[in-house]
């Protein structure tokens, strides 16, 4: 059979205008339904015919999913808020510059205008073998093409590989984990809230999903608590290009300091494992310490203690170590 790529197949398109309507549709069509937010992840999949949903539910008309507003305990961000809005909203730039900066590093100005925060969090991995439609573990097969003696795996994981070696592509996810955000998930019948850290799944838990979302479920909003607002922070994304590129590694960190010592810290690295990786051992080692070179060296090593590089990505171990060190050293207030 001939293979066609870069050319969409027809599908049935629903454009609900209310959240309940959207949830009804997702419930009715279950795993046949594809959730379309900004389309920045979706269109590749559909054009390459690697995913062929029969039903697409476009959330673009659901106003309940949009908007950003302050709450008693922090800020609420609708999952359909655009990345540009997240990067420029005064409540976010003033209270959570870490999140604003992470959103501002995503892709390009055009993509940030179109892409949403929810989409950036829920997007699938960018492993090119998987996205090209190869029948790998993540696609339901029984092989990983990216972890062979000849594979191209410069962009793949150095932590927590489990058959699959793909990485989380999101720049905003590490920031939200560092800020201890909570995700609201709704389905037609229920609503639940999970911590940002628990929203993402590694292959050991589920090799075919990147998040805890099940068919019929929707990420509706993100809540960032007051606790880490205005604290010192650091975000950096390292990529080949300054625009339209996914991270080779990124780091998001936030610190509570008192009298020159770190009282508490949250540090998360992205693009080095299948999910954004919170570095609890580093956080623990920092508590109560003042920053000096020996501490930096110590936590840098801690950060990469469990690294297992692949053939082409040993540099990611250095990169992770260096990014964690500079997050602590160069944190901004």
């Amino acid at each position, binding site marked *: 059979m001939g293979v066609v790529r870069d050319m969409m197949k027809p599908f049935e398109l629903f454009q609900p205008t209310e959240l309940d309507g959207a949830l009804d549709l997702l419930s009715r069509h279950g795993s046949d339904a594809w959730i379309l937010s900004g389309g920045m992840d979706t269109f590749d999949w559909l054009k390459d015919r690697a995913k062929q949903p029969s039903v697409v539910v476009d959330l673009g008309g659901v106003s309940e999913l949009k908007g950003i507003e302050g709450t008693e305990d922090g800020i609420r961000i609708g999952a359909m808020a655009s990345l540009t809005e997240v990067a420029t909203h005064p409540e976010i730039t003033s209270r959570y510059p870490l999140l604003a900066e992470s959103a501002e590093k995503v892709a390009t100005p055009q993509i940030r205008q179109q892409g949403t925060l929810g989409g950036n969090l829920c997007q699938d991995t960018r492993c090119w073998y998987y996205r090209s439609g190869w029948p790998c573990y993540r696609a339901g097969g029984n092989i990983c*093409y990216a972890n062979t003696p000849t594979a191209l795996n410069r962009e793949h994981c150095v932590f927590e590989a489990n058959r699959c070696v793909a990485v989380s592509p999101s720049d905003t996810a590490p920031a939200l984990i560092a800020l201890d955000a909570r995700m609201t998930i709704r389905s037609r019948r229920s609503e639940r809230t999970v911590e940002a850290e628990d929203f993402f799944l590694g292959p050991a838990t589920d090799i075919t999903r990147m998040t805890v979302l099940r068919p019929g479920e929707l990420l509706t909003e993100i809540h960032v608590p007051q606790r880490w607002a205005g604290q010192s922070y650091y975000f950096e994304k*390292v990529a*080949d290009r300054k625009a339209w590129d996914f991270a*080779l590694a990124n780091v998001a960190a936030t610190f509570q300091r008192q009298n020159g010592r770190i009282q508490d810290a949250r540090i998360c690295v992205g693009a080095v494992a299948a999910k954004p990786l919170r570095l609890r051992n580093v956080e623990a080692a920092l508590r109560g310490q003042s920053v000096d070179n020996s501490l930096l060296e110590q936590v840098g090593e801690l950060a990469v203690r469990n690294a297992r590089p692949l053939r082409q990505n040993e540099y990611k171990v250095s990169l992770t170590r260096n990014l964690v060190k500079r997050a602590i050293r160069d944190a901004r207030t």
Partner: protein
Amino acid sequence: MPKSRIIGSDFPQRDLLPKITGRARYAEDFRADGMLFAKLLLSPVPRGRVRRLDTSAALAMDGVYAVVTADDFPSVDPPGEAVLTNEPVYQGQPIAAVAAVDETTAAEAVERLRLDMERLPFALDPLDSLRPNGPNARDEGNVYGDEGIETLKWTSNDMAAVEQGRRPEGVEGTVEWSFGDLDDAFARADLVIEEPIVHQSQTHHPMEPRSSMAYWRNGKVHLHVSTQSTQRTQQALAGWLGMDEEDVVVVSEYTGGGFGSKIRGTITDVIPAALARQAGRPVMMRVTRDEETYFGRARTGLSGWVKFGFRADGRILAIDLFLIQDNGPFGRAGDFNSAGTTSSLAYQPEAMRLQALPVLTNTPPRSAQRAPGGMQAIAMLEPVVDKAARQLNVDRLDVRLINAPTHRSPVGPNRSEVTSAYVREALELGRELFDWDRKKELSGQVNGTKATGVGVALSPYVGGSSGVDGLLVIRPDGKLYVHQGIGNLGTHSVFDTAMVAAEVLGMPWEETEIVSGDTSRHLPRSTVQAGSQTTHAHTRANHAAAMDAKRKIQELAAGDLGGAPDDYEVADGRVFRRGSPATGLSFAGIAERAMELGGRYDGHELAEDLHSDTVRSARALAGQGLMGVARDNYSHDGSTYSFVVGFCLVEVDRETGVVDLKEYLPVTDCGTVLNPRSLAAQIHGGGLQGISVALFEKWAFDSQWGVNSNKRFYTAKPVSILDVPVAMDYGAVDLPDPETPVGAKGIGEPPIGAGAAAVACAIADALGGIYLTRTPLTPDKILNAIEGRSPAYGPLQTHV
């Protein structure tokens, strides 16, 4: 030719507004009644043989009108490239095409083609093919030798040397040239330096993919294509269709970039023509980005070893260059040769040897890509020159000055002479504009985690041919119509070379119309729009045609108003008697007179030295006004080359390997500047394309499966506008070449090598002398080098 009102003026380009407003029509913007859409079946494997292709299920679908296969096109002997094939030699090679009522149906029909295919062993990396028992890319063999394709394998000892980065003793190229006494020159050298080099292949990435649309009318096929050239594309398309040139009409009003990948259209352009013939309806084939990366051509990778012999003062005495060419699957690419000649010109060695080994690979087909060969050589060799300069403690600008070519310097193995070379002037102008003497003090300075580096690089490339024809008509509306057979691919030369005709004829630029973009509009014999030829060749040709017209105008004026032809001048759209401006005729009147008199004045009688293509067009235009038509017979003694010196300042983050391009300044010798805006676009655009190749662009294949991992812009990573400085200046020597009447040389190509090499040199400088002679210099490679880790690939391994 003295500069005056038009040449050298900053005219806004005529395609600016159509492009910005979307009015400009590219091949895929055309529509025809009843038009069908085509989709392609591509080879899923890098090498194979079609056992059976069953089209019945596809043809049985509603809305499917035609299927074409290899059998519908003229057969081609190996290693030539056929339009469609049953024996694909790279993944993505087109096997069949379907035309249907819409693209959705066509795609579904392609999915219903039943392809039974035998997989054959394939070669991706030239080194794999050279290994003992390594695979051959084709049945005929794996390398190009004297007699065509042959089989050549190296020994395991040779391969062991390669793995250690050394050139194996005794291995030879299948092509060789040399000049001077190499042994003697190396013996006299104070420093001999030898380095392995790897310049990858990479896709051209034109913004417009090679879409095309075809329909048949009265036995002629009309093809709307994306091509660099217009007039010369007609012949190529006719050849692929097995038709007479006169039965092919080529339309290409705008082309969204080609960079050498669409010189005379492209072989897939004719697929819709065959489908349209079979279906009896027009057919549009919109090529996707995915397909563009498969069959849209690529630069030829060059790897190997360079050995330089330097005198203590930095003078280069000897070069020994061994190049393994990643040739792709078809005809022998000439990149290795241009790499040699460009090096011979840039460094002016007393003695030099080039050995080359073009190795066939099952990777996408190659074609020229902006400064083919020259760019790879400059990008790889300039950092090695810097390494020597560091060891010899010679300033890097001075090392370029001491080796710089000048007027009549020799080039290449046959030691022909360049027509002009204002390289020293360009280097000195750049020293001043870039403030080299101060900036070089920043070399290696570390601020926080960032190290600063500066680089300078010299990039020559050929800048012009001669001997084509110019054709223009002054019509009774008083306007000048310059017929241009060259294309409109964004370089502006289709406009800028017509400035010369307006200048000679004293015609206001606003009253000058460019007739181009469609072979039915009667175009003169032109150069192909490639090799930076058009500026040189068509300023000359238009000069010749305008001088012919001017003489005719003067004769007509003298005949009507008395006196001798030489008593008359032209300016502002009229001819008048010198010293008596009121005695004259408007060009509208002149056009009428020419039509009354006929003969040579209106194109009914033509000079005998015109090309038959021009004669055909001139005959069609005869009787429409005063015709200027002439062959470029001006003297052209020597080889024409242009030069760009690139100056660059970078910061390299020593903790991440990220390179930040802070400044880039190109300075050029391209002869007389025709249009400063066009020049800036070329030397900045080309420079950034070079920087793109040096820093970002990826061409990587999974060697087990033979497939390319970067078929989209976001994975292939050409430079983005946010990767480059917001403001960039440039300099131009702006001195005329003496071997052409207008003084202008082509400038499409040398900018790219300058950008690539300058940034590579600047990175090495920032790293305190770690020279990475491989592209692209991505953060992983730089970080590995900084931290002393061995790279994730062999010294000469490609496609990583």
